[in-house]
């Protein structure tokens, strides 16, 4: 579904030249759930923006559903890391979620239903009438998630979507995302800093190196498909995998994509 070949991205201008991505090659099958971890500033957001058709790679190729990306592909949604800025401050929460549905051409009553449903799915059943800036950070982030879920994309890119919520809510949202992913057969690319989370959620964890960035490891998560916050996390295999990823991350911070 997602094919990334020798992707390279260099930012320039304002007296600063940064090679955000050195050479990324990876594939995500249709319907797969892949988590991406990597040190801060290694280019995860950049990668997602290239995939989402929001950014031109410096070189290399990106394909979504077989078609080369030039412009945001159809049926793809992004939950931005900068959740606060990705909500429209002039629209109430419900309207924010409704807007993409409107452009999708969904009828009014159906829209209403989806909005209500997705809001209560993220535990915000009662804030539909509020403006985003009246909400706490974590609430705003959940609105952004609700909007993405309501959109029911074929491909979902999530950039640290649970960074601002508490542990309990996070667990609930994790299960929600897994559920939704399964239900709609989405292809999911999920950036997180929480290693446990990456192992808990993904079918595969991709570890990126520090800048200049390469893929350090592709780790298949061979945990049972049915995950449970208590059972899965205490599964010895889970502990093993997360330790492995943790070690990789520590590596990653030192290691860069530089060839030896």
């Amino acid at each position: 579904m997602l094919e990334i070949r020798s992707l390279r991205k260099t930012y320039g201008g304002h007296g600063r030249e940064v090679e955000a991505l050195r050479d990324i090659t990876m594939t995500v099958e249709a319907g797969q759930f892949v988590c991406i971890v990597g040190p801060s500033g290694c280019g995860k957001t950049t990668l997602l923006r290239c995939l989402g058709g929001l950014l031109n790679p410096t070189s290399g190729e990106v394909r979504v559903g077989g078609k080369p990306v030039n412009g945001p592909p159809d049926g793809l949604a992004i939950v931005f890391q900068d959740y606060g800025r990705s909500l429209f401050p002039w629209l109430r929460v419900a309207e924010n979620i409704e807007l993409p549905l409107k452009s999708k051409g969904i009828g009014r009553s159906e829209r209403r239903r989806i909005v209500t449903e997705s809001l209560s799915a993220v535990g915000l059943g009662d804030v539909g009438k509020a403006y985003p800036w009246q909400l706490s950070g974590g609430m705003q982030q959940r609105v952004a998630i609700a909007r993405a879920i309501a959109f029911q994309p074929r491909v979902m890119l999530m950039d640290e979507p649970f960074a601002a919520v508490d542990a309990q809510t996070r667990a609930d949202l994790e299960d929600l995302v897994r559920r939704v992913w399964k239900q709609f057969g989405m292809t999911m690319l999920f950036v997180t800093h929480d290693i446990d989370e990456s192992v808990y959620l993904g079918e595969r964890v991709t570890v990126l190196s520090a800048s200049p960035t390469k893929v350090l490891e592709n780790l298949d998560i061979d945990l049972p498909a049915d995950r449970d916050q208590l059972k899965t996390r205490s599964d010895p295999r889970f502990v093993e995998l997360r330790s492995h990823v943790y070690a990789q991350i520590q590596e990653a911070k030192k290691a860069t994509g530089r060839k030896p």
Partner: protein
Amino acid sequence: MIRFLGRVGVALALPAVLLVTWWFASAGSTSFYQPPLERIIEVFPDTWTAERLQSDVLPSVLRLLTGYGIAVFTGILLGVLIGANPRLRALLEPTLEFLRAIPPPVLVPILVLIAGLGNPTKVLVIVVGGVWPVLLNTVEGVRGVDEVLADTCRSYRIGGWLRMRTFVLRAASPQIIVGARQALSISIIMMVIGELLGATNGLGYTVVEFQRGFQIPEMWSGVFVLGLLGVLLSLAFTLVERRVLNWYHGARAAERSGH
């Protein structure tokens, strides 16, 4: 109610101080062009009779509102197009900047060639003057929209008119509103300038007429009417702005309610 009265009090305080100062500073003035304020107030009721309000002020205000409306509409429309399209901006900006620097008084005869001596020209003069602040502010507002929001729109495939309506216009609205506010007073000025040519009635015409007839206290009373018109329209404008920018002021005021 008390808060309302307080606001009115605050609004009237400075004008009151200025008027009192003017009253005493100008009392006994013998300078022909600076008559005592007393004289100006004296002639006011006789000058601005109900009849004159109907025959001169009303037509002017109608032209003003029409011209202003067209100016704001045109300014926003052009501004959105130009602001959202760098190539179009590069193409048109020099020409528009050229036109902007042409004095309306010399532009008026050209407009007369095209639109005659009647109301259309007078309305057009208002448009020609009032469109610029709206245009410039809209262009800058559209150019400066938040990148993350723009990306959000692209990613969710929000495009076309829906995007215009729910994103571009709203995001630029704080700046568009500034432009519209600027245009309001400029439109009043252009209303006067428009009435200098081919005019037979109107508020601006009357003021200039008083000036030519050396009826200086009457002229000053006309300046008062222009100022009052400005204050009134600005008040109405504020009401509209409150509605349109509800979210904007909310997002800013809520956090400041501390201190």
